[in-house]
């Protein structure tokens, strides 16, 4: 093991060391202080004489005489199935007072890219019991679908409700939840832990905690440790893993901090130019592999600074993930839970997860029609503010009303309310029935005849039991 006492400079989280032997890029480094404390770091830049390290914990206490030990290997995560039920720190050390994890394997945390050819197409419908998700923005196994939120909004409750209720219909399979906290407060973390304990989910969970007062740079490896664990559980132990990452905004801040310390040329709003690639190396670890049972589904949560969806963090995230749930401050203020604004929300994999044999044949059409009606109704609210309700045409009045009941009946539901997909679709039809039938242009005539409440009622009235088509 190579040891040096040749630190030349220390700047923020960065330490520069002179050395003689070659040191590998991304190699794990231990910094040993005079009092024996060990801090961990990683090589960011290596040349013949000089190495730049980023130290995960604070650089406080490091002086120019501290020892630098190059371990000769990249950072690895010790994994075994014993890890389920454990609470670990942001750098993977046990925090729950339990024993060290006896590793089955030690895996490189960078994780190679899945060969696109080896990927399986995600198409298994996950029922979350939330109408705005199941009905309008369906989640499927292997998808990465972030929650775009703002500070002070109940995104954590939504994530918890998803984690609690998510299931694949008619399947009883091994699953696990990996919860990754990056820079959230102890209070928020407690909220998650309490819910996990209350529902007994903790024994199927692995928790990685990097709290607000933990070193910011540690956040750069926390999601990678967690996803390495997820890959192990999914692809070697056939589990369906749901990974909740919160809060990605804090992760990006840490990335910016390192970039600034290295005096890199900044991109938009000071974030490094490689942030897209860096985020992709996290999000793209969701998915399914052909011939493997397990899957990794990701729900990253991020708070949009100033509720601005064009901010680089939500923007770059949206280009990588397969859609997004957008939490609306307006709905939240009006007391509607979950305040999911369906209009900018999207699930790109929805079409492969719904329809005959998965949910129901009318799912797509109902969802499209609800979207169209709600969008138009919402636009009309602006008009009403100017000209008053009276000057609207009858068609517009029904649409305006439609938008209101949509929010009240379809979007709003209880924190513990678990709606089945049939129930959600039925609710959708009930709402659509308030519109004139001729206005349902997105729905095939046959489906209207089969599912529209007016037609269903008419059929029930017919004396002779007609053969249903």
């Amino acid at each position, binding site marked *: 093991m190579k040891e040096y006492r040749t630190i030349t400079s220390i700047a923020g989280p960065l330490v520069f060391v002179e050395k003689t032997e070659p040191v590998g890029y991304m190699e794990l480094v231990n910094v040993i202080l005079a009092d024996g404390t060990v801090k961990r770091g990683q090589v960011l830049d290596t040349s013949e004489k000089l190495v730049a390290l980023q130290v995960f914990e604070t650089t406080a206490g490091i002086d120019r005489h501290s020892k630098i030990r190059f371990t000769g290997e990249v950072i690895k995560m010790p994994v075994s199935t014993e890890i389920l039920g454990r609470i670990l720190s942001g750098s993977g050390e046990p925090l729950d007072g339990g024993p060290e994890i006896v590793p089955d394997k030690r895996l490189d945390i960078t994780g190679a890219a899945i060969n696109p050819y080896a990927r399986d197409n995600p198409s298994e419908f996950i029922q979350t019991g939330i109408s705005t998700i199941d009905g309008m923005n369906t989640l499927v196994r292997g998808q990465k679908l972030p929650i775009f939120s703002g500070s002070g909004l109940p995104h954590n409750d939504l994530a918890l409700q998803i984690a609690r209720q998510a299931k694949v219909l008619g399947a009883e399979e091994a699953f696990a939840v990996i919860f990754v906290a990056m820079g959230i407060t102890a209070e928020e973390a407690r909220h998650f832990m309490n819910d996990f304990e209350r529902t007994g989910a903790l024994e199927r969970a692995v928790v990685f905690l990097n709290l607000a007062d933990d070193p910011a740079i540690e956040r750069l490896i926390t999601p990678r440790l967690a996803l390495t664990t997820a890959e192990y559980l999914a692809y070697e132990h056939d589990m369906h893993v749901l990974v909740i990452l919160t809060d990605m905004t804090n992760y990006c801040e840490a990335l910016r901090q390192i970039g600034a310390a290295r005096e890199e*040329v900044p991109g938009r709003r000071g974030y490094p130019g490689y942030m*897209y690639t860096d985020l992709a190396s996290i999000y793209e670890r969701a998915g399914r592999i052909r011939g493997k049972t397990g899957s990794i589904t990701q729900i990253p949560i991020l708070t949009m600074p100033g509720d601005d969806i064009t901010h680089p963090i939500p923007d770059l995230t949206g280009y990588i993930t397969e859609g997004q749930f957008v939490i609306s401050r307006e709905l939240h203020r009006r007391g509607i839970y979950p305040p999911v604004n369906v209009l900018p929300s999207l699930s790109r994999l929805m079409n492969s997860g719904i329809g005959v044999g998965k949910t129901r044949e009318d799912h797509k059409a109902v969802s499209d029609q609800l979207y169209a009606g709600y969008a138009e109704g919402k636009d009309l609210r602006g008009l009403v503010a100017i000209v008053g309700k009276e000057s609207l045409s009858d068609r517009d009045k029904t649409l305006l009303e439609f938008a209101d009941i949509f929010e009240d009946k379809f979007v709003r539901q209880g924190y513990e309310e678990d709606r089945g997909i049939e129930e959600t679709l039925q609710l959708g039809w009930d709402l659509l029935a308030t519109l004139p039938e001729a206005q349902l242009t997105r729905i095939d005539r046959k489906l209207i005849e089969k599912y529209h409440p007016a037609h269903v009622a008419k059929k029930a009235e017919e004396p002779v039991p007609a053969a249903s088509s």
Partner: protein
Amino acid sequence: MEVEQTGRIYRVAGPVVTATGIEAKMYDLVKVGDEGLMGEVIEIDQDKFIIQVYEDTSGLRPGEPVENTGLPLSVELGPGLLSSIYDGIQRPLPVLNAQLGDFIERGVAASGLDHSKKWDFVPEVKPGEEVRAGQAIGHVQETPHLQHKIMVPPEKGGRIKTIQSGEHTVDDVICTLDDGTELKLMQEWPVRVSRPSVEKLMPDIPLVTGQRILDMLFPVAKGGTAAIPGPFGSGKTVAQQQLAKWSDTQIVVYIGCGERGNEMADVLTEFPQLEDPQTNAPLMDRTVLVANTSNMPVAAREASVYTGVTIAEYFRDMGYDVSLMADSTSRWAEAMREISSRLEEMPGEEGYPAYLAARLSEFYERSGRVKTLGGDEGSITVIGAVSPPGGDFSEPVTQNTLRIVKVFWALDSKLSQRRHFPSINWLDSYSLYTQNLSEWFVDHVAGDWEELRVWAMAILQKESELQEVVQLVGSDALPDDEQLTLEVARMIREYFLQQNAYHEVDTYCPLQKQHDILAAIMVYDELARKALNMGKLVDEIINVPAKSELAQIKFEAEYGTKLEEIETAMRAELA
């Protein structure tokens, strides 16, 4: 062949490695480190050679060897390209999958073509004949519907000495010339250099896509360039995939540049199941996919666009029409920016390198309908997707792209939010080819094609003006004829412009049907205006039952009789 030299790594920082002790040229391919990772020399600073490495550099140490091949990054061109799936530097992903398993580990070389497979070569020239560069000396039936022409590589030519028919691998010499030149089924070409042609031709034949809004309102010519800028979630990917599926070209090259893995998986599972509407053969038979997902190495992403366009040029040289989709050029530009920032170059706008505009125009300029060296006509239509951050079209990649391309299909997230697909905004989009192409449409589809297009655009334009008024006073305050205009515009939007990519009939709409639907709406417009003049109430006119039947026409494959019935009914109801 140059002597191979070995140097040493001096510095490693991300995908950029500095080496000393080699004497490389710019853009030479080098092998870096003990594992022989592929890289390319992108800057020379005195005795230091700066290399972008196409693979992950974790664990790489200073002092490890660097070997110069002395050759630029090239692709292998020959039989076996079709239905291949490559990464950004033409390594076949299925081969990597077989060798390495589900994850792409590094340091693996895999050649682009299968060197063991034998192809049946049929010569078309005899010994003693003169052949010139680009001329076909024979062909291989690569798929049941496509003859892969074996051409004399550019800059070669002469009198044939020997030529052999029969089963050959791509490495076998199948033909020799008098001057000793040996020709194989395969040739190599450096990706950063465009393949030569005789001259560029005028783009006056449309690329038929079967997408109503594209063919009718904003057509692109074969050999033209189009850009699809769209904020995320605006339906860009679906629009591109529709184009790849339905364009009437013999070859499709699809570059997934910084794409999502799951979407690439979707393409990879869906394409083999799809039928080519022209031949009923699997669509994969005419497709080459280049997939470099966002988490694959950034330098290979930079190269992937060149790999794709070089393959496209090779098929163009055979006299085929090729459509090239690049999704997304923004990701490509970001790869350039990332590498440029690692090189500590002085940044231009928004951190992009100052040569961004030059690189973009170089790439788009490789499109075109040309007279090939072999004397045929071939074309490459480039359709580039742009992903402007935050939907802001003023950012450098979008702006520099717009200066080059002739067609602009503006995706609009407002439209996709109300599930209007394809969510192409009809007011912001444009095509500079409509004049060049109208003659073709008139000759091949219908005499009133141009008239219909102008009429529909005028109605849509009028609608947007009226909408401003409606926003203030409500639609009831408008005069009757303007209310009618709003209704007709709504019909154009819902019955014609909206197209369901997932509906088995509606996903592809033949040109004649496009014409017929729009013509039927125009018939309604004429009848309705006549009825209005005769004193019929506008509400009655708007609510005639036959009209709403028109909404279903796009979903019917055999629509002819039904459309006639509707027209007859409309005439009766509006009489």
